[in-house]
């Protein structure tokens, strides 16, 4: 650990607090924040030499089965109430604008196929992405712009965000429900398993693109 080295190199420095104390500190920091906090962010608040990962592990165990749980959100952590107690908080429910069917489908396609281009979303849904769908998802901070695809035209890709993971209670995009089954069934590919080239069947503009789709999956994670 670089922190240990630093601590060793600097005899003036205080030794890090005991793990139980580190755990208390991480608990206090995460309790105070409504947003998930990254391990690096947490470490920056702690005295030098602390082992955030270990403290988090201990803390998570401590809250196992409690009314409040320590949840992992991508590379970040947050306390959230246990899902089975949601009925007690009915008064705090934030009335969210109901997403249209087009928006939920688009969101699912981005989550399961990410990084995905607009043309690929349209190919899967069989209709053009309507105005307002993508910007609604971006505004909710559930979707962001990923790397451009390295294919002709260099189209923009879309990926899901940490806020998305937090909202849907997912530790990472790999934990999407049914992801493994969908992949095994070949349904995250651009063409049926075993099919030779059926070029440009319903694809008019970016044939080459979709082949890259499956390979790219979650690459930038």
């Amino acid at each position, binding site marked *: 650990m670089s922190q240990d080295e630093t601590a060793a190199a600097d005899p003036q420095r205080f030794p890090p607090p005991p793990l139980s104390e580190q755990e208390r500190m991480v608990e206090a920091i995460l*309790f*105070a*924040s*409504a*947003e998930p906090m990254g391990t690096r962010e947490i470490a920056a608040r702690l005295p030098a030499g602390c082992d955030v990962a270990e403290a988090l592990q201990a803390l998570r165990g401590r809250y196992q089965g409690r009314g409040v749980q320590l*949840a992992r959100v991508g590379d970040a952590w*947050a*306390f*959230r*109430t*246990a*899902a089975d107690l*949601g009925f007690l*908080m009915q008064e*705090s*429910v*934030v009335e*969210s604008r109901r*997403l249209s*069917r*087009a928006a*939920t*489908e688009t*969101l*699912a*396609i981005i*989550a*399961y196929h990410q990084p995905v281009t607009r043309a690929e979303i349209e190919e*899967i*849904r*069989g*209709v053009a992405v309507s105005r307002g769908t993508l*910007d609604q998802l*971006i*505004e909710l*901070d559930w979707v*962001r*712009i990923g790397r451009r695809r390295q294919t002709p035209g260099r189209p923009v890709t879309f990926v899901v965000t940490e806020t998305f993971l*937090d*909202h*849907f*209670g*997912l530790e990472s995009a790999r934990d*999407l*429900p*049914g992801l493994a089954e*969908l992949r095994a*069934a070949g*349904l995250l590919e651009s*063409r*049926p398993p075993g*099919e*030779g*080239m*059926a*070029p440009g*069947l*319903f694809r008019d503009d970016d044939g080459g693109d979709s082949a890259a789709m499956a390979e790219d999956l979650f690459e930038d994670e």
Partner: protein
Amino acid sequence: MTKVPYLTPVPAPDSAPHLPGLAPQPTAERRAEEVLVVDVSGFEGPLDLLLTLSRTQKVDLMQISVLELADQYLAFVEEARALRIELAADYLVMAAWLAYLKSRLLLPPDPEAEGPSAEELAAHLAFQLERLNAMREAAARLMARDRLGQDRFARGAPETVARQRQVAWQAGLIDLMRAYARLRTRDEFRPYAFDRRDVFTMEQALDRVRGLIGFAGDWTALAAFLPEGWEADPQRRRSATAATFAATLELARQGAVEIAQAGTFAPITIRRRPQ
């Protein structure tokens, strides 16, 4: 007979209820009422419609009969046409493609043919339907999860110790992109206003042509009626020509003039209608 689901003809929204005892309606009005509007807006495109139709087969999507599905879809489109319903172009494109696929599936395979076989095309369609269906189910599962703010809650009173004040400037990606778009398209979005000086209105043209037509017993080129001083500047010439032509159409409708043109793009000529 194939059952056609969801084809629900509804009368055009603004057609008044037919009240008994009133004078018979003019034909045009009656015909307008007969035009039916079909609620295909419930479908999100041909693929969605196909998926819905495929459900009537009550089999696993993997075992779907594409031939039967093509029949169902074509029947749907036929029905829509019989009811004089206008379907969006992409529905018709899909119909044409399915008719083609159907013929290929029924005919013995042509050994000379290049590209994917009919079976491959059918398999691809079945795959697309299955994939769309899978994404739809994934969306439903996603939405049914324990969601933040609905089933799981964040700390209701995040603690802020007001000692070190720090301002975080907020700006989202959408704000940024919209700001840029606003700047780059500012000119496009300028309210449409034109310089009236360079516009010759149809009323002006009507007045002018009415006044001059009395002298045009013989075929006279339309260009001769353009007001003076409007020929040089292209923008003014276009406006004057358009207005004058529209005015002559109006006068022809009133029976005051006749219009003739020898061929496509040939000069347009007009004359006073012989009494």
